[in-house]
């Protein structure tokens, strides 16, 4: 509101000036008339003499500006001069501020790109993710079956357009080496939904989505440039995906990415043409299609939700087997995309804000020290007639210069920090490629430095201007002029710094402990010396389960024949790295009580040696063996958690289960032949859930992960796998080669990232707080040099002096801790959801942090205390 005030005042100034000059003119005219002139003549002469109202006004305005500009420039020049005269102080203050501003700007650039910036789609506020939930089973958000989606799209009146999408990878053979491309499998409306135009060619029409339509593909710009040399004649030509020809119909600009917001090379194909998801179209069961809708203008979220409820009820009524208990929900697309990183980012932003606060407190402390040592200078200036306002303005000018310098240095740090962050950011972070220091972020940095300058500058400036003229002048030198209020302020600032540092250290400590627990948790399988690689078979060439089994048998036989690679197996999906396949199943002779209350377990298809290679222990029964083939009776091995959950107080061995996967095998009964140890298959932080394993030979798949346990080098193993795969089929790419330890590590990228950053901020806070304590205590010691000299002269021992100073330090520290502990307890609840195996009120962390802080603070106070003991009474007494 300040600027409004200023604008109004300005126009008021102008009006008053006009009034003043008019008064003059009228007086002049009146005088002329009194002297005997006619009114007309009087007016003419007065105007002539006056020389034009506007010109006079202009000249008044000019002087006004001159004086103001002059004072400001003089203040700035003076500020620069005084700062140059104290290079140590200036350097520390600027550096502290630069750290605070830089860290804040860097984190804000991430927050801005991920949370605040609108998504890169037209009218992105209208875009919503529409999903299904099943509260009674704790299912919080899943996709759709195609048939349910089609019904929703047709029957609702609140969305102007809806589209479904899924993604996976296909093998592309077009030119050169076979490669794996990220493939978005979409319903044709996707592009019109987002209002995106192709770079060349056309987008999908609804005909492209009909069964029997010729297969077509749209290329992403990056892929087109990278793999096709930006060939303009590509449109109309044919490329091969999973060995099936697709006609290229369009190229989308690189700026358009959906649904793979972080992937840059991709293709889009109609759902109906996809070898995997296309086959799932006719089935109403299943939740795999991600649905996005554009809300019609003017429709509220509540209206839309009401309509979704109605559609949900209709679905449950018409198709109870698949839809009982399911409900439809919607959430803004942006929220859906950033959902799980939002709170982590906000915590980081809060943490880095605290660091800035500590930095400001530190600079305020420094400024107070300086203001005190400059009390005499200021008193002299005031005695010479400088007004209080003038002094405050000049001191503020100094802090403004400091703030500006710190801000500029901070922006440089932020540029550098953002680069560092980008390398560090987990790739799973959405919109990661949008993070940069742009104008908005720069504006934020400048605003922040302005606010910070006010925060740390105002108090010392006011204090300085209020200092008692008489005492300041009488007491010479730079040591005195300190009022007890000011010392209290400084102590309060230092204690506040400790309290803030405590909050950050506790949060960081909790994350660190939680991360250590996470690193030490056993996933339930061995990770050492295991290398994995993904192989995916083109489904149009390898179309039957027999071919899949034959391929995997031949590949495994070839790999196992190599020296050192005997311990190898095939699995789909691999725990942690591949995610899960969660399936409903039935127990023969023990059907579920009601429709919709399904039993669920994670499904894995493995070759016989899998358990041995992965080190998963057999608890009872047997592993799979070579005889568990398609022709033999179907078998299954379940995990301990599944046995406990679904077979309480029973022996699961010999029981039969059925489930509808893979397609075609629906209803086949499988006998449970063994129970194995639990495995954390979703994430290290998630407790193991029920799992069921089937022999790969009885439930083959068109691809999977090859795992090899070997003492050979990773590159050697990878080369061997690649070699053997190409021996079987020269057109097959091998992807995702990694050591299992590395893959597990990568799964912790997000946790590592936030733990590292919070740890970094906490360390900064600790150092700043230590500097703060050091400053206050050394100041207090130097102020009391005289007093200590007397004490020593009167026979006080050095130990007594040391104790006296240390007591002051400890008092500050304990005051800080007393404020800090409840704050830390309150703040740690904010990180509670990020913790694994540690309570947010973890006593160990709290104690360690308090002890560390006390130790660091004591050390920071010990340095000046030791100096105090060295005070020579003679020097101290003579001094002043």
């Amino acid at each position, binding site marked *: 509101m300040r600027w409004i005030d200023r604008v109004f005042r300005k126009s008021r100034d102008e009006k008053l000036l006009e009034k003043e*000059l008019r*008064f003059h003119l009228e007086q002049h005219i009146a005088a002329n008339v009194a002297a005997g002139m006619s009114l007309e003549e009087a007016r003419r002469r007065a105007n002539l003499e*006056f020389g034009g109202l506007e010109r*006079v006004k202009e000249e008044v305005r000019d*002087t006004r500006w001159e004086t103001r500009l002059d004072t400001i420039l003089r203040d700035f020049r003076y500020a620069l001069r005084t700062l140059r005269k104290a290079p140590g102080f200036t350097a520390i203050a600027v550096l502290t501020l630069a750290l605070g501003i830089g860290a804040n700007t860097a984190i804000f650039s991430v927050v801005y790109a991920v949370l605040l910036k609108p998504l890169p789609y037209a009218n992105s506020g209208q875009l919503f993710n529409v999903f299904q939930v099943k509260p009674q089973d704790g299912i919080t958000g899943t996709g759709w079956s195609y048939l349910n989606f089609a019904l929703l799209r047709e029957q609702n009146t609140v969305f102007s357009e809806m589209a479904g999408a899924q993604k996976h990878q296909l093998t592309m053979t077009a030119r050169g080496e076979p490669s794996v491309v990220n493939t978005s499998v979409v319903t044709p409306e996707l592009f019109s939904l987002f209002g995106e135009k192709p770079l060349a060619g056309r987008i999908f029409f609804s005909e492209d989505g009909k069964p029997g339509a010729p297969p077509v593909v749209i290329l992403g710009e990056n892929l087109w440039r990278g793999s096709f040399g930006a060939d303009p004649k590509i449109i109309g030509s044919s490329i091969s995906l999973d060995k099936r020809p697709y006609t290229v119909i369009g190229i989308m600009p690189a700026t358009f990415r959906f649904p793979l917001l972080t992937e840059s090379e991709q293709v889009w194909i109609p759902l109906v043409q996809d070898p995997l998801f296309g086959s799932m179209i006719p089935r109403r069961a299943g939740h795999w299609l991600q649905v996005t809708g554009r809300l019609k203008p003017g429709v509220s979220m509540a209206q839309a939700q009401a309509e979704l409820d109605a559609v949900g009820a209709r679905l449950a009524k018409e198709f109870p087997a698949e839809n009982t208990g399911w409900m439809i929900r919607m959430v803004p697309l942006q929220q859906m995309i950033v959902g799980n990183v939002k709170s982590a980012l906000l915590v980081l932003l809060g943490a880095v804000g605290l660091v800035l606060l500590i930095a400001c407190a530190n600079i305020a402390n420094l400024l107070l020290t300086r203001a005190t040592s400059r009390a005499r200078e200021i008193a002299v200036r005031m005695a010479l*007639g400088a007004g209080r306002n003038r002094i405050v303005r000049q001191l503020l000018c100094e802090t403004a210069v400091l703030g500006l310098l710190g801000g500029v240095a901070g922006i440089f740090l932020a540029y550098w920090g953002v680069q560092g962050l980008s390398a560090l950011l987990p790739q799973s972070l959405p919109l990661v490629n949008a993070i940069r220091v742009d104008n908005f972020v720069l504006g934020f940095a400048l605003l922040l430095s302005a606010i910070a300058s006010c925060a740390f500058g105002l108090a010392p400036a006011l204090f300085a201007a209020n200092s008692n003229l008489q005492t300041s002048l009488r007491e010479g030198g730079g040591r005195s002029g300190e009022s007890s209020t000011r010392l209290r302020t400084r102590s309060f600032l230092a204690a506040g710094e400790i309290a803030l540092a405590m909050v950050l250290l506790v949060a960081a400590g909790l994350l660190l402990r939680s991360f250590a627990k996470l690193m030490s948790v056993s996933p339930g399988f061995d990770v050492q010396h295991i290398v994995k690689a993904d192989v995916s078979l083109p489904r149009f060439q390898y179309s039957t389960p027999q071919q899949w089994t034959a391929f995997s048998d031949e590949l495994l036989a070839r790999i196992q024949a190599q020296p050192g690679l005997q311990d190898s197996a095939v699995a789909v999906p691999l725990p942690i790295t591949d995610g899960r396949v969660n399936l409903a199943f039935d127990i023969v002779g023990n059907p579920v009580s009601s429709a919709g209350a399904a039993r669920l377990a994670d499904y894995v298809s493995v070759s016989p040696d899998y358990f041995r290679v992965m080190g998963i222990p057999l608890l009872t029964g047997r592993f799979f063996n070579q005889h568990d083939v398609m022709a033999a009776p179907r078998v299954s091995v379940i995990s301990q958690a599944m046995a406990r959950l679904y077979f309480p107080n029973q022996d699961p061995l010999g029981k039969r289960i059925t489930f509808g996967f893979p397609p075609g095998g629906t209803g086949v009964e499988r006998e449970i032949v063994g129970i194995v140890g639990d495995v954390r298959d979703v994430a290290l932080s998630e407790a193991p859930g029920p799992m069921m394993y089937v022999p790969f030979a009885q439930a083959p798949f068109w691809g999977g992960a090859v795992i090899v346990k070997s003492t050979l080098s990773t590159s050697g193993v990878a080369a061997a796998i690649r070699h053997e795969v190409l021996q079987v089929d020269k057109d097959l790419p091998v992807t995702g080669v990694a050591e299992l330890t590395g893959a597990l590590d990568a799964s912790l990228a997000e946790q590592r990232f936030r733990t590292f950053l919070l740890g970094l901020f906490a360390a900064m806070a600790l150092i700043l707080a230590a500097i703060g304590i050091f400053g206050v205590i050394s100041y207090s010691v130097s102020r009391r040099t005289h007093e200590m000299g007397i004490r020593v002269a009167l026979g006080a021992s050095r130990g007594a002096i040391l104790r006296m100073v240390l007591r002051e330090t400890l008092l500050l520290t304990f005051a800080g801790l007393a404020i800090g502990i409840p704050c830390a307890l309150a703040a740690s609840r904010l990180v509670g959801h990020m913790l694994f195996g540690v309570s947010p009120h973890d006593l160990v962390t709290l104690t360690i942090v308090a002890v560390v802080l006390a130790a660091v603070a004591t050390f920071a106070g010990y340095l000046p205390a030791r100096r105090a003991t060295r005070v020579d009474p003679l020097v101290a007494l003579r001094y002043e």
Partner: protein
Amino acid sequence: MSEPQIEFLRGTLDMLVLKVVALGPSHGYAIAQRLQQISKDFFQVHQGSLYPALHRLEDRGWLQAEWKESETGREAKFYSLTRKGRKQMEAEVHNWERLCDAVGLVLRAPEKEP
């Protein structure tokens, strides 16, 4: 009106204005009139110099202004001297007198007979 317009140094005008205002709060027109009267029409201050000077002095805190009813019943901006302004004026008058004395001494120095 036929007398030559005297352009005098900014600092001198400031000092004279301060002095005139020191005689009693007055508005711009009255200040110009008084300056003219007291100097027996020697100083005819142009409005283009007077008002910038008044505002400059106000900005520096040497004058303070107040809107009051004038002798004619109209509202006018009255300037009066601040404490700081008085100090400034005294300092300037002191300097001016020393300058005049010095100039006078030099000018009155007896010339040697040829």
